């Protein structure tokens, strides 16, 4: 069973430290994929994103998705971190790290985790605009749902 690390937190995180933690002290890791999702400024229009989550369920869902990836690919470790609260453009929102003996597993698992995380983990984004117009909840994309059909 690979080492699974799941954290849901308001604080920023350090992708490099998380990646190193997965490979630390072992010499059988051949590849590590790190995906970092960042807050875009939407052409300068965005003041901040507000990330709401369902405490308890968010951690449970991320753990369930990680366990599913661990069952499908021969991984040594999976780390998923997801922030909530107010996040400014340029800041990190989410991190997925996968370590394995071979490259293919790391790419596929990280891609899978991000796909499922987006459509299954209970987080919701609200956009606060710089022009002071009413804040709006981000709509789920149909493409996110259809992305799941790849797996």
């Amino acid at each position, binding site marked *: 069973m690979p080492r699974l690390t799941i954290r849901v937190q308001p604080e920023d995180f350090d992708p490099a430290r998380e990646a190193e933690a997965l490979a630390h002290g072992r010499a059988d890791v051949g590849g590590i994929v790190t995906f970092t*999702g960042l807050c875009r400024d939407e052409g300068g229009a965005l003041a901040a994103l507000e*990330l*709401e*989550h*369902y405490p*308890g*369920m968010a951690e*449970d*869902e991320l753990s369930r998705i990680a366990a599913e990836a661990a069952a499908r690919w021969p991984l040594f470790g999976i780390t998923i971190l*997801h922030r909530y609260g107010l996040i400014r453009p340029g800041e990190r*929102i*989410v991190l997925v790290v996968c370590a394995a003996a071979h490259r293919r597993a790391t790419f596929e698992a990280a891609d899978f985790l*991000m796909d499922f*995380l*987006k*459509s*299954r*983990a*209970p*987080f*919701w*984004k*609200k956009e606060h605009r710089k022009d002071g117009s009413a804040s709006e*909840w*981000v*709509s*789920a994309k149909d493409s996110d749902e259809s992305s799941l059909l790849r797996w």
Partner: protein
Amino acid sequence: MRWNHEGGWAVKVVYFAWLRERVQRPEEEIAFPASVVSVADALAHLATLGENYAYAFEKPEIIRAALDKKHVKPDAPIAGAREIAFFPPMTGG
């Protein structure tokens, strides 16, 4: 879940994102009548509780639900659940 005097029960209902804003509260205890069996029944019942509820649940087909923090389909029976959550499609990541 607590049985109430009408033969129904009271259960904690939680809302997220724009559902929470429309309902105008993050959570509440609801005494469902005995006729409410499934998640879809619970949703339909909530939609009758007032204007803000009607607005929140006007498009039931896009609303997601969880029983005790696990995703469920609309036909899932709610009997035994301590917490029912309703929320829009997720947009994390």
